[in-house]
């Protein structure tokens, strides 16, 4: 991958370059307090774009998989139907997304585009999407208490799947790494200049230091993946986790790797209906309820079991080539019952240790 160096004062000029290419640019902004969010860049708010900030809770997933999206429009007259699929084909750039979210989008790519049936709605959002990743380097602003990408091996610097990666080297300098030919094409602009071996060394040193700044570092995924895949988690542990779940669905809505949706028809005119898909959540009781009322997965702890099995079981890792957790820590931050991913991984690991059949020490 090619790399260049640019001045910190020039970083937002990348946004201008992308906008000049005719792209709608999405970037992170700060609201009041902890509130941060992604928004469309305009001339008016361009100066307010933040490079270092806590990752917004509402993930950028919605720019490839909107929380509500129209699939079809159906017009019916005199018993005849015209079915018209409706597509959004934006030419967009996501500026300033974190490494965890880059990996999240990559996970969605494989889920929606890498199987027997390709999802055309996802594909049209994804096709012209340009990703500018910013590496989390500021322990005070970038790295939250719940961030644990060091455990899921997805950060703090994404290794791939971005078009351009920016990293603050300190001293008013940034390093830009191109991940695709489209990213490399930007290097033609005079704001980019060649770096030196010293810059590469600084990047390495900063990354080494940043990895030590994470507060959540005990999410031992490999052991948990093994326990979950082998079905070695006691039912009692799922019940404990279930008892703490408030069934709000928050964890699934903030998750950059959750993919489930429901489909609904709604009337929009006298002879017109539309079919939309809406994010759905396996935490909610109705998720598996069939017509007639039978629900095979009624208990809360069965549903919690489901979510973590889906994310961590070896079977699905093999199927999607990565586990469906990118270590962003959002579920841990929003969960009122403290059963986000890091806590659950820890609970599962402790519970499995209790029933370890290979435990050599007996009483």
């Amino acid at each position: 991958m090619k790399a260049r160096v640019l001045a910190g004062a020039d970083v937002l000029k990348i946004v201008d370059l992308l906008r000049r290419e005719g792209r709608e640019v999405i970037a992170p902004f700060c609201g009041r307090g902890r509130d941060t969010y992604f928004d469309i860049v305009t001339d008016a708010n361009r100066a307010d774009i933040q490079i270092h900030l806590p990752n917004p809770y509402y993930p950028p997933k919605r720019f490839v998989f909107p929380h509500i999206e129209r699939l079809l429009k159906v017009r019916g007259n005199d018993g005849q139907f015209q079915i018209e699929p409706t597509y959004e084909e934006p030419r967009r750039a996501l500026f300033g997304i974190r490494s965890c979210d880059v990996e999240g989008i990559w996970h969605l790519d494989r889920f929606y585009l890498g199987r027997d049936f390709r999802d055309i709605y996802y594909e049209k959002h994804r096709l012209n999407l340009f990703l500018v990743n910013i590496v989390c380097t500021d322990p005070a602003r970038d790295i939250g208490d719940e961030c644990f990408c060091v455990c899921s091996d997805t950060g703090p610097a994404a290794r791939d799947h971005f078009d351009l990666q920016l990293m603050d080297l300190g001293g008013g300098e940034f390093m830009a790494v191109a991940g695709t030919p489209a990213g490399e094409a930007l290097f033609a602009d005079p704001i980019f200049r060649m770096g030196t071996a010293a810059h590469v060394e600084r990047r390495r040193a900063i990354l080494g230091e940043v990895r030590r700044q994470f507060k959540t570092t005990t999410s031992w995924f490999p052991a948990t993946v093994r326990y979950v895949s082998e079905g070695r988690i006691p039912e009692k542990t799922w019940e404990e986790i279930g008892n703490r779940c408030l069934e709000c669905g928050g964890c699934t809505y903030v998750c950059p790797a959750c993919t489930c949706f429901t489909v609904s028809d709604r009337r929009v005119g006298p002879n017109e209906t539309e079919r939309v898909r809406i994010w759905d959540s396996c935490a909610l009781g109705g998720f598996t309820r069939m017509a007639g009322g039978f629900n095979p997965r009624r208990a809360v702890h069965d549903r919690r079991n489901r979510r973590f099995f889906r994310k961590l079981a070896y079977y699905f890792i093999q199927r999607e080539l990565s586990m469906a957790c990118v270590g962003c820590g959002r579920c841990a931050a929003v969960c009122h019952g403290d059963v986000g991913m890091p806590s659950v991984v820890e609970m599962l690991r402790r519970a499995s240790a209790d029933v370890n059949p290979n435990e050599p020490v007996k009483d």
Partner: protein
Amino acid sequence: MNPSRTENVYLPKVAILDRVVEDIAEVRTFYWHFEDPAAQTEFKRFRPGQFAQVSLFGVGEFPASLPPSPAEPETFFTVRQVGSCTGALHRLKPHDRFAVRGPYGNGFPMEQYRGKNLVFVAGGIGLIPLRSCIVYAMNHCDHYRRIQIFHGAKTPEELMYLSSLRDWEKSGHAECHLTVDRACNGWGGHVGVVGSLFKKPGVSVPVEDTIAFVCGPPIMFRFVIRDLLAMGFEERNIVSTLERYMKCGVGKCGHCCIGTAYICVDGPVFTYEQIKKLGEDI
């Protein structure tokens, strides 16, 4: 990214309802065809055991098994009225339009079962998804050895496809055994759960080289499996077709996932050996 054109897998095609036949209370068979003859030809390549997504615009979409065999001239669904979508289908009249996409799912590997005995065990409307294989087996009866059908329902009025069952029996290619949980006036046949038919005097169920197709409500499924295993059936020779709440039919929406399997793309047909390993109760 893949340069080839991506098809819209969520786009259904318009279908026209031809006629409706009342089967049992709240269950009707809907004969239909696609508005576009090319779509009809393409759809007719379905395999026994596959399913389709049926759209009632303004109401929604639901998965329905395909009871016809691909060789039959007509396509149809047999649907019980349980929710809003199936209710809307039941309200349609001949020549009304709705929409269908599919076929989806793996289906039964009928070719693999060549040279074997086939035992069909169906509880109530569980006979609907098995009908396709039965008709297929009857049309290819020289490929299979004995064909037996065991069908049970709560009452004689709730036995499915009675006239077809009589025709199959008359053809001499299949034995049909019926049972009801509660006999009503005029029922002279067997009374008891469907598993009790296996031990009925005069009935012999082959176990060697036999595939057992089981479909019915969860309680019936559990007991029939127990009976079959006790008779000596191997787990891999018992097949079933599962159902779940389903939205997309193409492995994306996540609703139909049981343990490690998506019912829509990995199933709906599973052997009992696979069902046991799914990692979640069915």
